[in-house]
């Protein structure tokens, strides 16, 4: 069974008017919506300002040729996923090969054979549809940053050194909560809680990379380095606590269980990368800084403060936070005491 192809929005870039007319007319006859551009520069401008499912690109053009447009698209994270089909004369096959090697999706020789045109366009659109689905699926199971990194560089196990902030959050007395109510209620509670926490973290450039039971771990500044990773982590934590207040008011109004959490943040060097096996792996961070963040989170129970950070994180904060110096604390696995601060609005 052949699926009826959805109409797509296509861009034809060609300096030759006859070619432009023939191509756009043929594609319109096939049910697509077609836009045209007379040279590479105009074409690139349209690619950047509108959204296209596919681009047909001539190689030989004045002002900006097909190579330059292709390279500009491939070097742009936002444009990279648009399939580009090169259109060229038969004798330009050398140039076409170069384009396909660079990353062009396919090629067509001019004058274009309509049957070949239809087949190539539909195949490319179908491939793009699958890639888009793939991308969506990736984003469900990994964070946006990790998904893009994976799509860009491919998957390989192993880590690299990064400077980042790690945040751990845990629900207080969760076991008691879980034991006192129906499992389905607990799942609902967790889902409601997690979706609020995820929003607060994602809004501040972080990504959640582990959830274990009622706990979560998030990273700020990896895989893509962000200068303000420490401040972003703290801002996310404060937003989490604010969100939780609202959540608890709603829970109380419905006579449902309220949640209290502890958050610990530490910043510094760590190893980030994929751990697991070739068939099942997660993006995560390891190292002293990560262990410290986890210990600091546990320390919130002792310190009776919901949000604690290490000295390193504190050094990355502007003056706009309410800080309380809790002095040095000794943690398991650490030889020297660490200065701990409590943060509040």
């Amino acid at each position, binding site marked *: 069974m052949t699926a009826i192809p959805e109409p797509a929005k296509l861009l034809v870039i060609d*300096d*030759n*008017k*006859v*070619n432009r*007319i*023939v191509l756009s*007319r*043929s594609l319109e*006859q096939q049910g697509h919506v077609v836009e045209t551009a007379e040279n590479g520069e105009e074409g690139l401008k349209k690619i950047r300002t509108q959204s296209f499912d596919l681009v047909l690109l001539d190689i*030989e053009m*004045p002002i900006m040729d097909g190579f330059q447009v292709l390279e500009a698209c491939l070097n742009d994270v936002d444009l990279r996923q648009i399939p580009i089909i090169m259109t060229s*004369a038969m*004798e330009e096959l050398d140039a076409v090969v170069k384009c396909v090697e660079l990353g062009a999706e396919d090629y067509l020789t*001019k*004058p274009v*054979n*309509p049957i070949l045109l239809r087949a190539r366009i539909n195949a490319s659109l179908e491939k793009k549809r699958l890639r888009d689905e793939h991308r969506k699926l990736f984003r469900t199971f990994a964070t946006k940053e990790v998904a893009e990194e994976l799509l860009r560089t491919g998957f390989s196990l192993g880590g690299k050194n990064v400077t980042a902030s790690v945040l751990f959050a845990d629900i207080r007395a969760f076991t008691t909560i879980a034991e006192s109510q129906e499992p389905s209620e607990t799942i609902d509670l967790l889902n409601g809680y997690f979706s609020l926490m995820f929003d607060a973290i994602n809004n501040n450039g972080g990504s959640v990379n582990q959830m274990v039971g009622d706990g979560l771990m998030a990273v700020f500044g990896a895989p893509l380095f962000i200068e303000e990773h420490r401040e972003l982590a703290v801002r996310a934590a404060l937003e989490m606590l604010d969100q939780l207040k609202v959540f608890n008011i709603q829970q109380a109004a419905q006579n449902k269980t309220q949640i209290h959490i502890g958050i610990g943040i530490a910043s510094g060097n760590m190893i980030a990368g994929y751990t697991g096996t070739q068939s099942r792996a997660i993006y995560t961070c390891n190292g002293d800084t990560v262990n410290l963040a986890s210990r600091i989170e546990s320390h919130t129970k002792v310190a009776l403060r919901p949000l604690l950070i290490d000295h390193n994180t504190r050094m990355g904060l502007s003056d706009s936070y309410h800080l309380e110096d809790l002095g040095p604390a000794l943690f398991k696995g650490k030889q020297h005491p660490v200065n701990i601060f409590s943060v509040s609005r």
Partner: protein
Amino acid sequence: MSKIDLNTFNLLKETTGADFISELIDSFLEDAPNLITQMRSALANTDADSFRRAAHSMKSNAATFGAMELSALARELEIFGRDKNLKIGNRLDVMEESFHQTANQLKKLKA
């Protein structure tokens, strides 16, 4: 002798729609003299690149309509231009003559 390969021409007509073919012929007939002018002034200015580009367009457009002779003549000139060799003898005149004959036949096919 026919200057137009009718198989190619009919396929084009079918692809773009019969009602559309005359518009397409018009834009070729309008554009081609400009290309010839561009080639002549490129010769005068010894601008091989401009010469090559105009020849390239002529070659491509002629092939679209199935004007194989014209396309081959333009292709030959494109290679001269690419090789930065503008000693083309009377080849441009020959190509222009071929264009006029092609144009006459295309006008008839329009009707």
